[in-house]
């Protein structure tokens, strides 16, 4: 017995394994680089401009916030929160409606918009966690309900007219990119830190993997689940306020177009950095990867339908990839 004690050292993954690990972690980044090189070679005049860079990295903040919101609930095992896009839409329309139509202070309107989004998350959480209603049904219903509310308060029309000074919370230039990009980056870095380095993040992972195991380990499972829904609502709400600021107003019908890209990016994110796991930084990379792909195709002269084809196709491929990676890891 004592001989075997000394013999068993912790194995380090071998070199072949290391190549494999790097391959599976960074392959999407490799594809991204190849994609950029191909576009740069075929469209050097348009793709290789700072405007392209600006468009790719400066225009995705709504998507970044939405994927972060979706990650809140997906890490704790709620597979599909369909309502985050509509929650963002509600928050984004409330700001111009309250400010422009009703003459509120824009900051107060922002706080109310975020609070409303957090309330939506709390209602979702209450129905799903306390009452045990099916997640898809609750959030799908909630998504349509909120879209309707957004159309109602805005009288079915886009509302604009927010002040330039307010737009600086999203558009202020910092090191060549709008502030919104940096805000999204900080959010995702913070989220990644939370999941990887704090007991709360660890608990969230375990709740997502197996609720009964978590409960037996003393984790307050339902509190974490409820909190995740509230956090999802709040993050979508903040994202809404920033979207509104960036465009000086909001078109209430636009929120639905985010739904597919959110899922595509989130699932594609499981193929990056931590294969088989939903992870914030991988998701962030996936958001910009998808944005690059679409912009490049548009520059090549492909028409407007390309984003539907690209996001739809990417979603199917990403979910397939995610399923295969997860299967291999169990």
């Amino acid at each position, binding site marked *: 017995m004592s001989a075997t004690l000394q013999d068993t050292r*912790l194995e380090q993954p071998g070199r072949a394994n290391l190549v494999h690990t790097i391959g599976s972690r960074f392959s999407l980044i490799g594809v991204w680089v190849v994609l950029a090189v191909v576009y740069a070679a075929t469209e050097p005049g348009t793709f290789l401009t700072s405007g392209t860079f600006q468009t790719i990295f400066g225009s995705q903040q709504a998507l970044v916030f939405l994927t972060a919101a979706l990650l809140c609930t997906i890490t704790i095992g709620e597979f599909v929160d369909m309502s985050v896009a509509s929650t963002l839409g509600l928050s984004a329309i409330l700001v111009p409606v309250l400010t422009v139509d009703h003459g509120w202070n824009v900051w107060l309107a922002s706080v109310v918009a975020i609070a409303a989004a957090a309330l939506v998350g709390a209602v979702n959480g209450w129905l799903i966690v306390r009452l045990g209603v099916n997640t898809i049904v609750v959030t799908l219903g909630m998504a349509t309900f909120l879209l309707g509310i957004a159309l109602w308060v805005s009288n079915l029309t886009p509302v604009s007219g927010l002040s330039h000074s307010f737009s600086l919370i999203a558009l202020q230039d910092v090191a060549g990119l709008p502030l919104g990009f940096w805000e999204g980056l900080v959010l995702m870095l913070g989220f990644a830190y939370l999941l990887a380095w704090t007991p709360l993040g*660890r608990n969230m992972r*375990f709740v997502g993997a197996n609720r009964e*195991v978590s*409960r037996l380990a003393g984790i307050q499972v339902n509190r974490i689940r409820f909190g995740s829904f509230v956090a999802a609502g709040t993050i979508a709400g903040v994202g809404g306020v920033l979207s509104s600021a960036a465009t000086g107003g909001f078109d209430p019908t636009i929120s639905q177009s985010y739904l597919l890209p959110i899922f595509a990016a989130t699932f594609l994110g499981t193929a990056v950095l931590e294969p*088989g796991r939903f992870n914030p930084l991988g998701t962030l990379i996936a958001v910009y990867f998808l944005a690059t792909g679409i912009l490049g195709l548009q520059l090549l002269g492909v028409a407007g339908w390309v984003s539907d084809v690209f996001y739809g196709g990417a979603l199917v491929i990403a979910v397939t990839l995610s399923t295969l990676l997860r299967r291999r890891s*169990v």
Partner: protein
Amino acid sequence: MTAEHFAGPGGPGAVPRLQVTGVSKTFGSNRALHEVSLEVAAGEIHGLIGQNGCGKSTLTKILTGYHAADPGGSIRVDGQSLRQPVRPLDARAHGVGVVHQSLGLVDDRTVVENLRLGRFRAHGVARHIAWRHEREQARAVLERLGRPLPLQALVGSLSEEERATVAIARALQDTQDGRGVVVFDESTRSLTRAALEAFYAMLDDVVATGTSVLLISHSLEEVLAATDRVTVLRDGRTVESGLRTAELSEADLVHALLGRALDGAGARKPADPDRPVVEIRAVAGKGVQEAGLDIARGEIVGVTGLTGAGHEELPYLLTGVRTAEQGTVSIDGRAVRLAGLDCAGAIEAGIVLVPEGRERQGLALELSVSENLVLPQRGGPGRRALSRLDRSQDRELVAEWVRTLDIKPPRPDLNVGQLSGGNQQKVLLAKWLATRPQLLVLHEPTQAVDVGARHAIAEAIRAAADAGCAVLVAGSDENELAVLCDRVLVFREGRIAEELTDDVPAERIVQAIYRDAVRRPLRRSRVPQQTRRT
């Protein structure tokens, strides 16, 4: 042919019912099977045993066509070669039926649907299922087994014995009496003793007709008591082929499995009469009327009984998993009230549970060994939610436990689901031992675990006791309790009815459990051999 003809395995020259010759299987650079051979004679129950990872599940998967074997080997049924890779329909045509782990039944479907699944024939213009025909077929096979069941009943509403009947009937329906072979792949492990007796009574009738059975099991006791001959696999090779179980003891089997004898458990430290004691008082809740016991620090106490006697509920009531109506646990003079106790409270008081359901309650299979192992320390209660995790401290802790319990492969970064069952169980035990508990409660700690892992787990539990932990083991496996426990308490109807002290052998535990109920041997046709067991 008469049943007597099959009283023993086929004589010299007889064509084996199932003959596997020189079958190998390579996964990548990994050779899982080396020229494995296996012969099941007509009309016998043949056991196939081996440790986790020895290749027996790979062999089963080759028989069912899930894996394709490497070229070269052959599989014959009644002398006829099966084409490889095996196709399920082809195997079925040759009379090879398989019953998988946990019986493979769909609970919310009826008996007839479960029986005929995959065999429904489309009839008429509308290509509908002719239910009358299906019911007749189902009734016929159940009658052959001599155990009619309500065909329209939901399988989930049946008793365990009846469920076992459905599973066997399903595997048998394509075989004719006197032909075919039914493979049971660990399918008996969830059965209670009563259901197990009924199961083997049924198999007795089946093999008496000349049909053969290949039984793959972890339970050496079951293999010794219920099979005629046994084949042992070790590291992907056949090390013993067709040994007659009547001439074997459990120690012989262990030796064949491991290639060495197990070290004796060793004498336990004599009890110190002045040791502080964990007092468990007046526990009541679901299944437990009232139970009180003392466990000294350093002592391992077993609780057992018939199914439903209450010993299975006690672990969950003590650890806040299920809410108790009343009761207290006093550790070092500090009393913990069980009513209203949750898991976090129990863990903080030093009361931890190693639950029975490894996959359901024990471990998160899609997270890593390391994450699972440190969960109670890092993620659990009593931690500030946003304080930074200390990863180097985690690594040391994990490395220590991987060494202590000899977890293989020693790769904390692997997901738990990638480990074998025995090693998963070691991770589960380590996860809770690492919290340095005051009272360690275990439910069936070595169920469905191979002999080597069982030994390592027993050693670790003893070491925890020697370090001053009070240990309570709930289980119905008398051999496990006999090896582990200093004392065994027997539950009847929710109360502690009997206490067995001083070196409790398995036989005494069995006698105490079945004091009123008579425990029958697993196979009636093998009664004389029962008395020989060591």
